[in-house]
């Protein structure tokens, strides 16, 4: 093993020179950063700055147009053959995604499954875990997010905050190395947001590596170690959270903070 791959191995997420183009529009421009294991990163920036696209590139839901992404030292979506990156098979990419949890703005719980079945779906269908063990774990995770009594409720019977907590439990059930949050509270009113923020805080205290795109300052201030600030597809700040809130360097960051407090 050479030195670079050793460094990559220590990082939970490493992104180098990432570019993404949507029919002529540069959504991500040469993004580079890294996330160490156990770190919580707040990904901030105005709407349309590329936060969601960045997250969707990390688990290869979007195909990238340049650069490389590693999660836990594994190159995502491609096999490296010298100077050539060859895209992996569907099955190989799917296997890589097992280690990368994702929580969506719109929750995206499987509507035909109960809360319990949603949480079991990953372990049972993807990891082929025995049903009984998966169910026991799912019940434990439901209790952890404070919804032990909602095991048999369908998503439509749950409030937005409850749905999002089930969605977080569904992500954790896979024991992911990192969890990507795509504006987890943006579809919730302030009161329901707090339930979700509290759940995310608990995970942060447990040392879960998380990359959280958000407009919720309670998450950015309360649990983030570092802030990544994006403006129109560019990463303009990558600083410790305390520094970002005390002394934002970029003009656009100052405007953003003035708006969001």
């Amino acid at each position, binding site marked *: 093993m050479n030195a670079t791959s050793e460094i990559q191995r220590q990082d939970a997420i490493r992104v180098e020179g990432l570019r993404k183009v949507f029919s002529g529009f540069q959504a991500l421009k040469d993004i580079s950063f890294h996330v160490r294991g156990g770190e919580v990163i707040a990904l901030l920036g105005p709407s349309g700055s590329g936060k969601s696209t960045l997250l969707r590139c990390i688990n290869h*839901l979007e195909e990238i147009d340049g650069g490389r992404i590693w999660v836990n030292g594994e190159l995502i979506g491609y096999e490296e053959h010298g100077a050539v990156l060859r895209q992996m098979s569907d099955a190989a990419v799917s*296997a890589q995604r097992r280690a990368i949890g*994702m929580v*969506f703005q719109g929750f995206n719980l499987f*509507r*035909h499954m109960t809360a319990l079945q949603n949480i079991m779906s*990953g372990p049972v*269908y993807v990891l082929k875990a025995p049903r009984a063990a998966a169910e026991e774990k799912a019940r434990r995770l439901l209790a952890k997010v404070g919804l032990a009594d909602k095991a048999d409720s369908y998503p439509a019977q749950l409030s937005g905050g409850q749905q999002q907590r089930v*969605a977080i439990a569904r992500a954790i059930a896979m024991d992911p190395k990192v969890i990507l949050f795509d504006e987890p509270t943006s579809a919730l009113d302030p009161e329901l947001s707090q339930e979700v923020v509290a759940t995310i805080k608990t995970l942060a205290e447990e040392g879960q590596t998380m990359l959280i795109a958000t407009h919720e300052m309670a998450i950015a201030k309360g649990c983030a170690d570092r802030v990544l600030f994006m403006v129109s597809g560019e990463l303009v700040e990558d600083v410790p959270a305390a520094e970002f809130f005390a002394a934002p360097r970029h003009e656009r960051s100052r405007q953003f903070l003035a708006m969001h407090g």
Partner: protein
Amino acid sequence: MSIGVIAEPVRVRIIRRRRWGAWLLGAAVLLVLAIIVVAGARARIIDPDVFFHYLTSGEVLLGARNAILVGTVSMAVAVVVGLAAALMRLSGNPILTGVAAAYVYFFRGTPMLIQILFWYNAFPTMFPRLHLALPFGGPVLVDAAMPAVVTPFIAAVAGLGLAEGAYMSEIIRGGILAVDRGQQAAARALGMTRPQMYGRVVLPQAARIIVPATGNQYIMLLKSTSLASVIGFLELLRITQGIYSANFRVVELLAVAAFWYLVMTAVVTAIQTALERWFPVR
């Protein structure tokens, strides 16, 4: 001023508006129905003895059985072909998408009757022998004259099943498209492969939309089996026609055929209702 004393609740009686127009219309409809039934009974358009005699006669039951057989096998073919065409259409691959679109255009765009005649008459002329062998001098699997292979039953199933498959493909595609895209993203993010995503997440939700329309198509297809009479397939309508052309009891025999089509429809409706319970609205 602070909140005053809450007034003593007054008991009021609620009178709902009566929909007089609907009731009057309903009464008129019943009256018309009664007039028709009484007129029919007076004219003795149906002789009950003849009706019941043929209702359970061996020939008629054979025709009904054949209608159910061809209709059901064709529907099974249609569901499989339709699902494949729908997934091809959604695959994003230009060749698969194009082939699926062309299939739907041709098979939905030509009358079922022409398709049945094509499979029975034109196809064996185009390919007189069916010869299947393993390559490189391997053993011959099938070798037969095509007209012997394409029986009226096979031609009817090919004609009805492939035509119906074109409709089913659009119904299934519509059902899949109606499932929120976020469901697919969530399934993929969990690490499901494409087949797992369709099998576990997308199709079970699309089924809620697909099932009622499929019930409709199944019923339509059972009645369309009468088209197979043109290639000499012994189905219900052809058999009843054969009987009344000999004894001239046209109304009774058409009523017998209608009765069995109604029985089939009732059974399909029951299956559809059960499937809708299996895939409830969530």
